[in-house]
C-alpha cells in the first residue's frame, strides 16, 4: 500500500482502489447476495412476488431430493434422487479428473523442474501454453472432432490395428467429459507442482541418492513431501474447476452423462426457475468447498501452504 502510494500518488491510488472496490462490490458481491437471497424464496408468477406466498424457506434446496430414478450400484438396484445422483457423480468424476491430472502433471513437472536442460525450458513452456491461446469452446470442439465416430482417433487406432471396429467415444458415459476436462485443466495442476518442485534444492535429491535411496523412494520421501502444497493447490483448482465446468460437459457429454452444472443451467435457462437454480448453485459451491476442506484436513494440508 505504501509502495503503491509512493509510486502512483494519492489521486491515482484512490481511483485504482475505488475501481477495484466497485468491481468487487457490484460485479461479485451484490449479484451473489441477490442470488443467495432469491434461493430461499419460491418461484412465483410475477404478480405474486412480494405477496403473502413469497416467504423465506429451504424449499428450493429440498428439491434436489425430488424425482427418483432406479440406479444400480454393485449389483443392488434401488431408487435414488436423480439430482443427488448427478451431484455425487459430478464430485466423483471431478476427483477422477484431478487424480488423472496429477498422474500426468507430476512426472512432467519433475522433468521440467529437474531434468530438462534449462535452455530448452522456455520452448517447452511455450509449447504447453499454445493450446491456451485457443478458446475453451474451440478446444472442446476440437476434441469432439477427434473423438468422433469417423474421426481421426478411431482412424488411427484402426490403422494401427489396436481396434477392429470404431468406438463411440462420446457416447461412453463420462469418457468424453473426462478427456475434455483433463485436457482443459491439466495445466492448472502442472504449474503449481512445477513451482513447488523447482524450489526443491537439487542437493537434497542427490543427498538422498547418495544415502542409498532408489529413485522411487527419493520421490516418495523427498520430492512429493516437498511438492505437497503444490499438489494440493493443483488438485483443489482442478477439482473445483471441473466440478464447476459447464462447457466441456455440454459439448463432450454423452446421452448418459449429466454434470450438476448442466442441471443448474437447465433450471436457469430452460425452466427459468432462477430461485431453484440459485439454490442448486449454492449447494454445489458449499458442498464442494466442504469436500475440499475435509480432504485438506485428511491430507494434513494447511491453507497457508496452498497460498504459497
Amino acid at each position, binding site marked *: 500500500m505504501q509502495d503503491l502510494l509512493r509510486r502512483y500518488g494519492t489521486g491515482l491510488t484512490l481511483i485504482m482502489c475505488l475501481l477495484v472496490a466497485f468491481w468487487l462490490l457490484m460485479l461479485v458481491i451484490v449479484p451473489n447476495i441477490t442470488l443467495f437471497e432469491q434461493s430461499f424464496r419460491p418461484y412465483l408468477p410475477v404478480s405474486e412476488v412480494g405477496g403473502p406466498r413469497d416467504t423465506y424457506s429451504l424449499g428450493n434446496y429440498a428439491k434436489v431430493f425430488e424425482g427418483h430414478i432406479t440406479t444400480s450400484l454393485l449389483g443392488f438396484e434401488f431408487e435414488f434422487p436423480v439430482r443427488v445422483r448427478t451431484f455425487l457423480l459430478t464430485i466423483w468424476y471431478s476427483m477422477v479428473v484431478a487424480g488423472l491430472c496429477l498422474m500426468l502433471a507430476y512426472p512432467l513437472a519433475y522433468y521440467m523442474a529437474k531434468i530438462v536442460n534449462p535452455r530448452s525450458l522456455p520452448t517447452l513452456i511455450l509449447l504447453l501454453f499454445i493450446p491456451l491461446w485457443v478458446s475453451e469452446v474451440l478446444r472442446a470442439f476440437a476434441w469432439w472432432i477427434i473423438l468422433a465416430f469417423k474421426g481421426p482417433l478411431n482412424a488411427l487406432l484402426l490403422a494401427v490395428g489396436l481396434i477392429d471396429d470404431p468406438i463411440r467415444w462420446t457416447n461412453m458415459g463420462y469418457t468424453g467429459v473426462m478427456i475434455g476436462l483433463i485436457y482443459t485443466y491439466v495445466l492448472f495442476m502442472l504449474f503449481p507442482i512445477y513451482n513447488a518442485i523447482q524450489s526443491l*534444492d537439487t542437493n537434497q535429491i*542427490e*543427498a538422498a541418492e547418495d544415502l542409498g*535411496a532408489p529413485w522411487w523412494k527419493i520421490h516418495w520421501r523427498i520430492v512429493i513431501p516437498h511438492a505437497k502444497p503444490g499438489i494440493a493447490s493443483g488438485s483443489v483448482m482442478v477439482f473445483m474447476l471441473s466440478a464447476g465446468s459447464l462447457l466441456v460437459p455440454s459439448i463432450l457429454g454423452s446421452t448418459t452423462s449429466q454434470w450438476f452444472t448442466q442441471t443448474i443451467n437447465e433450471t436457469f435457462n430452460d425452466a427459468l426457475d432462477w430461485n431453484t437454480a440459485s439454490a442448486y448453485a449454492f449447494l454445489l459451491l458449499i458442498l464442494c468447498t466442504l469436500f475440499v476442506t475435509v480432504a485438506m484436513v485428511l491430507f494434513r494440508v494447511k491453507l497457508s501452504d496452498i497460498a504459497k
Partner: protein
Amino acid sequence: MSAGIDLENVCCDFGSFRAVDHANVSIKPGEFFSFLGPSGCGKTTILRMISGFIEPTQGVIRIGGKDMRGQRPNQRPTALIFQNLALFPLMPVWENISFGLEMRGVSKTERRAKAEELLRLVDLPGAGDKMVSQLSGGQKQRVAIARALAVEPQVMLLDEPLSALDLKLRQHMRAELRAIQKRTGVTFIYITHDQGEALAMSDRVGVMSHGRIQQIADPREIYNNPVNGFVASFVGENNIFSGEVQTSAAGMASFSTPHGSFRARLGDIGGHKVAKLYVRPEHTVISATAGAENAIAATVGDVSFEGNFITVHATSDSGAHLTSEIRNDGSATVPEKGARVFMSFDAARASILQDANERA
C-alpha cells in the same frame, strides 16, 4: 572399515572446458586428505566424481581397489557432505540421520537407537526430535556428519562443510571433525579453500589450481617446500622477486634481480632461466647492519601490531615492497616508521620457483 581411493589420470570435461585435468592421487585407508584450492579450481568436481554424480571423461577411479565406473552414488561406499549440507527440512533430526538406514530396510526402533547413538557421537544427545530449522549452524553441521556416518561409509567426502560457520565455531568444528575421524577411522576427503583449515586438519594436502593438482604432500612439506609459485603464494604469504638464474650448484643458485643478486635454493624450474624467488615474511629478518648475503637496504613503512606477531612493511631503495613478521616475544627490537634498515633472509629459507605447473 575404511577404504583407500586411487585416481588415475582422471579428467572431467564440461563441453570444451576441462574442469579437472589428469588428476593422479592415491589416498590411503583411514587418511585425512584435503583438496585445497581457490574457488572454481575443480574441487567439487573431483568430489562429485568420487561420489558418482559425474562420470570422469577419462581415467579410472578406484575405491578399495575396485573400479567404480558405472556405479551410481547409491551403490558406492561413500557418503558426501554437501557444501550446503542438504539436510531434509521436512524430517526431524533423527529421521534425517537414519534416512540411509531406512533405505536399507532397518526397523524403526533400531533406526531410532542408532540415531541416538550417533547424536551422542557428534555431541548432540537428545536433539533427535527437533526439526532441522530449530538447529544452529554448528548443530546442523553435526547432524549432517551423523547422517553421513549412519550408513557406515568407507569414505567420507566433505565439501567445504565449515565455510558457512563463524570463525570460533569453525575452529571448534575443525577439532571436532578431526576427533570424529580418528574415532571412526574412516577415510576423510575434505575440500576447502581455506589454507589454515587444510594445514591444521590433514594428514596430507593436495593443492589444486585450474583443474590440476599442483602438489601432494603433508602440510609441513607444502608450506616449507612448495613445488611452484602457485603453491607458495596460495599457502601463506611471500616476498617475491622476479629475476634470472645465473649459476647453480648443489641445489643452490645465485639469482639476479633488479633489486640485487641473491642466493637461494633452486626448485624445479624445468630448465628455464627466468623465474621467481619466494621467501616467507617470518624468514625475512630486519637488522641495522647488512649481513654477508641476501641483504636489501630499505626504509620502514607501516608497522602493524597483530597480537602474537608484528608485521613490518618496508620499501627497498630499488622500489620493491617487502614485509617481515617479527614474533612478539621481546627478543627483537621493533623498528620505527621511517627507519633505515636492512632486510635479509637465509638462503636455505628462500626458493627459486616457476609460476605454476601448466600442462602444455
